Structure formats: structure tokens, C-alpha cells
């Protein structure tokens, strides 16, 4: 590559990174949280975690829910238990605009009502919503997608700029000053994690822009516009009630018959429509191994009175573009490859946050050396460091058992306080303040781990196992942050 070309590409990569670096960091760090949302909900449940059952009689669960409170037979939704969400959730009443749904959570082992700790989690959605929409609804979702565009462009620009030397794949200079360490970390994260970073970036782009495209382009493909497109996408609604009562077979028998007919469809939820009517139907929704789809698109609908298959929906056999659209969410949130897929996705998310942080740090260092004003550095350190500390404080607050409103105050208040402190810190103390925030965040994470480990030890391993995975992750993250904070604290002359 010609030197002038390299200079131009480097300049565009640098300035794009400077403009979007902080936004990329916030989206990627919160993205790590969002990918682990189900695990964090389970972790948050603490002492209220349930054991995942081997087998559940859904008919008994429905009867138990009915005995506790009368159900609206027009529509009943039953969410089946999983290892991360071991309660059976029975909801009834028309969904959406038809009115509020009433629901009850049951212990699958006993059929007794339980507080659905994982389903009604308060901590996990705080950061997950930040990642998905920046708390700005649909426009926020589009904004996050645009950050994905910037991230993808930066990734590709960075790879093109890389000089392709074999020694660059392993070189990490930790003892030669912060600039060398940050540069090497930036390069290593980009090189080693490029495939998963690109996967996350591109699927992130289509998460929001795909929805925007569906909204704006559907009138060109369908005379009925968006409602018609959504009806075809999510399948037709169940038939109307005939008004003729009919005897219903046991629900578990219908589910067993479905499992026998289509063992590939792993049921996640069951929807009953007009139960007790001659036209009553049962819809089984779930996922299929090896198929990148969700329960919204993989369904089988049966007539309840005799178990006759009325219809099936699946992306199998559909066109490539539709399959690509449906695959975006499972790919972005690592609903593939089990625990290894999630681990890879988390590594990609952390790598992306490290890329954004080190890239911004390098730009700030160069800017400071050129005598630039310090506001950009204060803003980046305040917002980025504040988010890190706020996430750690939120985890500790949840481990302690604070209520939902207190958790929100801890997160937003903590973020604002740390950001303000870092932004207002005198220039000569700013490095030490940033190091202290890193150490503080690490300490808070270690505190959260300690509290959770203490209560997990009182639980069966099968119950606590997913939470212990979270603890191991947080333990590593906390130790790294404390070590980094202490290193920068005591070697502040060598810190950015």
C-alpha cells in the first residue's frame, strides 16, 4: 500500500474512532451484558433459584394455575421451564391491545405458586435495555445499529491498515509503557477476534436497520403494508371460537403426541386458544437444533379436540433472504453452539470494548501530546469509566438484594456520580482517579461474587451451576480490573 494511502486510511480510521469510540464502548460493554441476560437473571434470583425439572406434566401445571385463579380460556400461554428459567409461567387473557395479561408462576416440582425471580428480574433488564435501545424506543434501536455501522467500518479499516507481520499476532509489550501496551492490545483484539467481531457488528447493524427496512419497505411488497407483512412473518391467528363446547384431551397427551410427531422442535412455549371449544387449538413454539431461528418462527398448530395438525411454520425451506433476517437475532445474541457459542460471543463483546477503549485512549494520548484541550479525555473517561463502575455497583446491589427502584438508582446514580467525579477531577489527579475507578469497579465485582458464592454454596450444584459460571466470569473480570487499577495507581507516571 502506498504511504499516502496508508496515511489517508489511518486518518479516516483514527477520526472515525475518535467520533464513535465512546459510543462503541458503551454499546459493546452493555452488549456483553445483554448476551448474558438470561444467565444474569438466574444469577440475580439468588436464594430464590429453583431446580430445573427433568419432566413436567403441563396438564397438572394448567390445573394448578386454574385452581389458584380462574384463567381466561380465550388465550392461555404456558412458558415451559428451562435450566435458566426453571419456573412454569401460565398467562391468560388477550395479549397486546386486547387487555392486560394475568399470569402466575409455578414451581414445576410441586405446582405451587412461586415468586418468578428470573422472570421478574429487575437488575438484568437495566443494562440490556441500554444495549438494545438506549432507552429511546425504536429510534434508539436504529441509533445502536448505526453504531454497529461505525464499528464495522472501523474494523475493516483497521484490518486493511494492519501491516500483516506474523510477530504481530503474539506481541504484547506490557512493560514498555502504556502506549505500547494499549497499541498491542488494540491490535491483538482486532486480529484474533476479527470473525466474531464482524459477526457481532454486521448482525448488530441488521438488528435495527432490518426492522426499519421492514417498516419502510413493506408497503412496496404488500398492498396491506406493515400489518400484512407482519401477519405473513409471524403466521396467521387461531380460528375463531365456534361456540360449541367440546371435551378436551389431557394437555400432556397432546404435547407427547407432538413430541412423537416432531421430536426436532424443542418446545419452549404452548399457546391454547379458545380452550374447551370445538375449534380450540394448541400451538407449540420452540427452536430446532442447528437451525438459526426463534420460537416466533418455529411453530406447530394442532386442533385441540383430536390433535389434528392444522399447520406448521418454520424458516426451513423458505427463501435465503428471509432466513438471513430470522438468523440475525440468534447470531447476535449467541443462540447457537450452546455454552461455547456464548463464550465466543462474550469474548467478542469484551474484545470490542477493549478495541474501543484502547483506540480511544491512543487517540487521546496523541491529542494530549499535541496540546489539545482535555475535555474529550474527561468525557471519554467519565462516561466509559462511569458505565463500568455502574455495572459493577449494580451487580453488587443485586447481590445484596436491593429492590427494583433502588437498583435503578444505584445504576444511574452511580454512573452519573463516577462520570462527574472523573470529569471534574483536577488534571494532575485525573490519572489516579481513573485508576481508582478501575480498582473500585473490580472490587465491587469481587464483592458481588463473594456474596453470591456464599449463598450458592448452600444450594445444590444443579441449581447453582449457571450462577457459578457467572461468578467465575465476574471473578476474572474483577481481578483484572483491580490489578489494572493498582498498576496504574502506583505507576501513574506511566499511565495515560
Amino acid at each position, binding site marked *: 500500500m502506498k504511504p499516502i*494511502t496508508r496515511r489517508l486510511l489511518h486518518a479516516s480510521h483514527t477520526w472515525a474512532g475518535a467520533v464513535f469510540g465512546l459510543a462503541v464502548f458503551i454499546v459493546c460493554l452493555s452488549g456483553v451484558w445483554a448476551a448474558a441476560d438470561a444467565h444474569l437473571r438466574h444469577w440475580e434470583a439468588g436464594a430464590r433459584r429453583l431446580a430445573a425439572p427433568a419432566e413436567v406434566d403441563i396438564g397438572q401445571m394448567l390445573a394448578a394455575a386454574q385452581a389458584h385463579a380462574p384463567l381466561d380460556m380465550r388465550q392461555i400461554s404456558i412458558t415451559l421451564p428451562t435450566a435458566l428459567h426453571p419456573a412454569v409461567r401460565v398467562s391468560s387473557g388477550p395479549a397486546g391491545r386486547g387487555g392486560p395479561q394475568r399470569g402466575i408462576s409455578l414451581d414445576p416440582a410441586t405446582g405451587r405458586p412461586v415468586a418468578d425471580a428470573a422472570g421478574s428480574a429487575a437488575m438484568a433488564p437495566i443494562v440490556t435495555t441500554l444495549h438494545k435501545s438506549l432507552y429511546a424506543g425504536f429510534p434508539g434501536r436504529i441509533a445502536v445499529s448505526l453504531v454497529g455501522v461505525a464499528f464495522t467500518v472501523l474494523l475493516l479499516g483497521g484490518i486493511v491498515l494492519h501491516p500483516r507481520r506474523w510477530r504481530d499476532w503474539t506481541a504484547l509489550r506490557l512493560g514498555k509503557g502504556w502506549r505500547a501496551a494499549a497499541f498491542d492490545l488494540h491490535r491483538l483484539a482486532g486480529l484474533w477476534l476479527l470473525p466474531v467481531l464482524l459477526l457481532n457488528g454486521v448482525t448488530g447493524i441488521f438488528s435495527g436497520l*432490518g426492522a426499519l427496512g421492514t417498516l419502510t419497505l413493506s408497503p412496496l411488497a404488500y398492498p396491506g403494508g406493515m400489518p400484512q407483512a407482519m401477519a405473513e412473518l409471524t403466521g396467521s391467528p387461531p380460528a375463531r371460537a365456534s361456540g360449541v363446547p367440546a371435551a378436551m384431551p389431557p394437555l400432556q397427551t397432546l404435547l407427547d403426541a407432538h413430541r412423537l410427531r416432531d421430536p426436532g422442535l424443542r418446545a419452549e412455549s404452548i399457546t391454547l386458544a379458545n380452550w374447551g371449544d370445538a375449534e380450540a387449538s394448541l400451538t407449540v413454539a420452540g427452536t430446532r437444533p442447528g437451525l438459526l431461528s426463534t420460537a416466533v418462527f418455529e411453530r406447530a398448530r394442532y386442533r385441540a379436540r383430536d390433535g389434528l395438525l392444522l399447520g406448521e411454520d418454520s424458516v426451513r425451506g423458505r*427463501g435465503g433472504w428471509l432466513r438471513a433476517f430470522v438468523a440475525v437475532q440468534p447470531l447476535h445474541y449467541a443462540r447457537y453452539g450452546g455454552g461455547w457459542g456464548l463464550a465466543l460471543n462474550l469474548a467478542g463483546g469484551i474484545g470490542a470494548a477493549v478495541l474501543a477503549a484502547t483506540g480511544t485512549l491512543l487517540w487521546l494520548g496523541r491529542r494530549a501530546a499535541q496540546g489539545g484541550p482535555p475535555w474529550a479525555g474527561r468525557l471519554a473517561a467519565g462516561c466509559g469509566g462511569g458505565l463500568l463502575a455502574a455495572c459493577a455497583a449494580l451487580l453488587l446491589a443485586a447481590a445484596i438484594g436491593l429492590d427494583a427502584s433502588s437498583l435503578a438508582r444505584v445504576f444511574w446514580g452511580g454512573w452519573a456520580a463516577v462520570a462527574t467525579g472523573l470529569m471534574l477531577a483536577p488534571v494532575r489527579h485525573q490519572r489516579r482517579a481513573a485508576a481508582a475507578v478501575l480498582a473500585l469497579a473490580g472490587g465491587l465485582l469481587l464483592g458481588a461474587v463473594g456474596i453470591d458464592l456464599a449463598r450458592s454454596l448452600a444450594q445444590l450444584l444443579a441449581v447453582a451451576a449457571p450462577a457459578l459460571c457467572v461468578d467465575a466470569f465476574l471473578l476474572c473480570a474483577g481481578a483484572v480490573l483491580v490489578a489494572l487499577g493498582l498498576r496504574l495507581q502506583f505507576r501513574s507516571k506511566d499511565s495515560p
Partner: protein
Amino acid sequence: MLGGGAAAVLVAMATVLAWPDARGLERLYAGVFIGTAAWLAAIFVALLAASGARAWGRVLALATVAAAVVLLHGGWRS
């Protein structure tokens, strides 16, 4: 960026209207993906125009040829 975005919207609309597949969802998402890809391509072309990087040109040309071959062969659909 904005010019590329406007052009990408036109590409997406043209794709939905002209896509040779009667199925609505297939046409719709062909437009969504090709339009977004056109926007990303426009950003890269703008970078290329600014830098004149031959490597980028080769990569884009190769990717375009590969995509065309895959689409023509019908291997994209399974």
C-alpha cells in the same frame, strides 16, 4: 454518509419492486439486505475515493464476483 444512505434507500426500493420472486417476504428482505449492503459499500467507496487504495478495490471486486456467482448458482438458497 448521507448521500450513500439516500442512494441505498433507492437501491432497496428498486430491489423490492424488481426482485424476481413473487413471495413478499423474500422481496422485502432482499431489499433490506441489499439496500444496507449498498450503504456500507457506499461508505467504503467514499473511503476508497479518498484514499485510492487498490487493495480495497480488489477486495470489493472479489466480493462482488463471489456474491454474483453464488446468487447465479442458486446456492444461497438451501
